[in-house]
């Protein structure tokens, strides 16, 4: 090559590259937060083919008419306000103005109607269809659009939990999507919602990403409030990295592979809070952990034996160990974070070994083995069983632990084929829904532990009732009845423990426990 050309190249190329590099650095890398997920999402369709991680993910993309606030009460989201008729059969939602979908179109009442009709179509296989088609508390009779920004739902019976059910994350928050999310033949393409993030890249089995929706129309509030409030996103990209194995997830956090772990165990919390550069964010959640009885079992059908078990457990010690000191004892089905957790709900079982022994003797129990099913997939369930066994030994109750694989235990739970079982219920965000998960007719639903007819009546009333005070009274009655009946022993509510790296601001754990990446930002210098 010619001498001068060579010289130019030798000088020019490096200089140019340096300039280029400087420019790119100045332009700034898009900010990225990496969050650890313990499994891949199932699909991008809200409330359809979903699991917990899918729910957490989709709630960043779509928004519903109403949503849960930080304290687990229900507040308006896409709706400006909600008006309920006096007879409780008509719900009128007035939509906010100027809300944009992620494809640029504006939100209208027609879109709401279209989305809801799709949800209510059995072909969609929406998870929450049973709650709205008459199998649950009430049935949606029709949805009408009297004005461009007004939607009217008519139901057949008063339903105190309608709005709470609409807000459920496992329903996808009943998120409103634009018709372009679906192809002409009805197959799902991708979610076009109104939320602060849009669907990014999805590398199945490895990670799935969210991109900030630049034209997001936030609510007027100053800050985020649960799944509602001002949900403006501050970070450009969020990547949910799939790390099924908890130990690997922890290793990833420590080595910088992820920035946030939304849900670590209590043991890990004890360790991680002492690690430099890590911060722990804790919140109680609404999962219910306890021991279930089969009241139709020949031995456990005797309430005296069940009551003896309830009186023999040292709850404070058990909960302190199970939650590493992070949770409180709760013998009530109503979670501690619920608005309905009042003085009555705080009443529980006293620790009375004498009385327990007396009851056992009276019932004629002489040491027959009682099988307690546990599993290894959820360590807290297993530990609950181990501790219960040890404590019950002191009053002479002979507990035999039967370890099963989770799938096998679920089968036993579903069919009611067990004597005792250590179990944890997924969270229900309304007290009536919590009671509904354990109460029912055993002939129709063998998995329900409590089939006291009086309880069923009270439950139905609580589900229909919308007035808070009346509901509180019903819940008080339910709790008192349960303490006497002892169909199960509730022990504690779980905690959500999130761990974030220094520099991540605005991330909070909360009673609904799903991770939220809006309102979260990275400090200036970051990877």
């Amino acid at each position, binding site marked *: 090559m010619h001498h001068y050309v060579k010289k130019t190249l030798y000088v020019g190329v490096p200089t140019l590259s340096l300039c280029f590099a400087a420019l790119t650095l100045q332009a700034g890398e898009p900010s990225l937060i990496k969050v650890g997920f313990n499994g891949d999402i199932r699909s991008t369709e809200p409330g359809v083919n979903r699991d917990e991680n899918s729910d957490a993910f989709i709630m960043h993309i779509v928004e519903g008419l109403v949503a849960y606030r930080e304290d687990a009460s229900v507040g308006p989201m896409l709706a400006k306000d909600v008006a309920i008729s006096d007879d409780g059969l008509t719900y009128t939602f007035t939509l906010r103005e100027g809300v944009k979908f992620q494809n640029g179109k504006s939100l209208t009442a027609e879109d709401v109607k279209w989305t809801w009709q799709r949800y209510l179509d059995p072909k969609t296989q929406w998870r929450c269809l049973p709650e709205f088609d008459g199998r649950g508390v009430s049935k949606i009779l029709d949805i009408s659009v009297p004005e461009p920004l007004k939607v009217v739902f008519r139901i057949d019976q008063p339903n105190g939990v309608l709005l709470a059910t609409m807000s459920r994350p496992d329903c996808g928050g009943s998120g409103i999507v634009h018709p372009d999310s679906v192809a002409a033949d009805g197959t799902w393409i991708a979610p076009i919602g109104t939320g602060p993030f849009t669907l990014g890249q999805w590398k199945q089995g490895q990670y799935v990403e969210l991109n900030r929706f630049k034209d997001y129309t936030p609510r007027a509030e100053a800050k985020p409030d649960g799944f509602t409030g001002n949900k403006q996103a501050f970070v450009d990209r969020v990547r949910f990295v799939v790390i099924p194995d908890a130990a690997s997830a*922890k290793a990833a956090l420590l080595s910088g592979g992820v920035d946030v772990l939304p849900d670590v*165990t209590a043991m890990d919390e004890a360790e991680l809070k002492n690690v430099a550069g890590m911060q722990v964010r804790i919140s109680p959640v609404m999962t219910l952990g306890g021991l279930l009885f089969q009241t139709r079992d020949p031995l456990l059908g005797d309430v005296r034996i069940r009551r003896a078990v309830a009186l023999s457990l040292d709850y404070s010690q058990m909960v302190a*160990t199970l939650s590493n000191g992070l949770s409180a004892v709760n013998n009530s089905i109503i979670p501690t974070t619920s608005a309905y957790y009042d003085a009555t709900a705080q009443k529980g079982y006293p620790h009375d070994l004498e009385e327990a022994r007396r009851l056992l003797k009276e019932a004629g129990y002489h040491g027959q083995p009682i099988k307690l099913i546990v599993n*290894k997939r959820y360590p807290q369930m*297993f530990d609950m069983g181990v501790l219960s066994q040890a404590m019950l030994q002191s009053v002479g109750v002979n507990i035999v632990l*039967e*370890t*099963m*694989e989770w799938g*096998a235990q679920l089968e036993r739970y579903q069919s009611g084929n067990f004597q005792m079982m250590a179990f944890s219920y997924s969270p229900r965000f309304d007290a009536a829904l919590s009671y509904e998960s354990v109460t029912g007719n055993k002939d129709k639903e063998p998995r329900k532990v409590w089939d006291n007819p009086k309880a069923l009546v009270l439950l139905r009333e609580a589900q229909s009732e919308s007035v808070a005070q009346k509901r509180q009274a019903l819940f008080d009655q339910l709790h008192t009845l349960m303490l006497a009946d002892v169909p199960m022993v509730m022990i504690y509510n779980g905690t959500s423990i999130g761990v974030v790296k220094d520099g991540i601001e605005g991330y909070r754990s909360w009673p609904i426990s799903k991770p939220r990446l809006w309102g979260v930002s990275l400090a200036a210098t970051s990877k």
Partner: protein
Amino acid sequence: MSAKRTLQAEPALRAPLRARRAWRYPPLNALIGGGLLLILIGMALLGLVWTPYEPLRLDLLARFQAPSAAHWLGTDEFGRDALSRMMMGARTSLWISLLSVSFAVVAGTLIGMLAGYLRGWTDRVLMMLNDALLAFPGILMALGIMAIIGASQYGIVLALGIAYTPSVVRVVRGSVLSLRELEFVEASRVIGNSEFYTMLRHIAPNCLAPLCVLATSMFGWALLSESALSFLGLGVPPPAATWGSMLAASRPYIASAAWLGIFPGIFISLALLAINLFGDALRDRLDPRMRK
């Protein structure tokens, strides 16, 4: 004439070509291997009657203690003494391995002899089943068996036993096939012994050599597999301890309490080393071709 000679030698003939060697000082690998094994077995047996602390006793105030004079191998996430659990683990791990190998040897020998001796359709069908079982992933079998009969020591023994039986069948069948053509077997049949008697008296003892070698290898596989299964969450359920489940349980604490993962791994490696060395020596002794 030759028939008469072999007749006289009827009492449990060895296959020819075996030079019976005079007793010599055992080679180094047998000593080291055997010695290590004895130590580990001793540890297991001692654990039956005495451990420094109770292996199952929780002590929530003394969690995650590093190795010290009070706790030679430290404590785990529940405050349990690691050394005591290691001794309990020795007992459980070695016992499970022993049982599963025994199962495989007994079942495999029976099937292998049947297949090898009877040949024909019995052989074909058995070998097809055998090959199918051989290709079947152990994990699925382990999970299947344990999900059906419940997770327990015996579930694992059954799963591993079934998983290793095909290898035994292959080896035994191979031996039987080569042995059945030999003179003394023919002779045994000629003088009127039943097939069964011939199988038992003449063929079986000669399968012993390769079987012994295989059995020692399988013992190592079983130990390893049990650890791997525990690692994946399918092992002996807690609070019982096996080395594998202790190793698996130590994973979340690898950064803060590394000793919890190092010692079980060391013990498993030592046990496998012992088995390998001893197996080598055994093979050298029994298989004349390998000797210099």
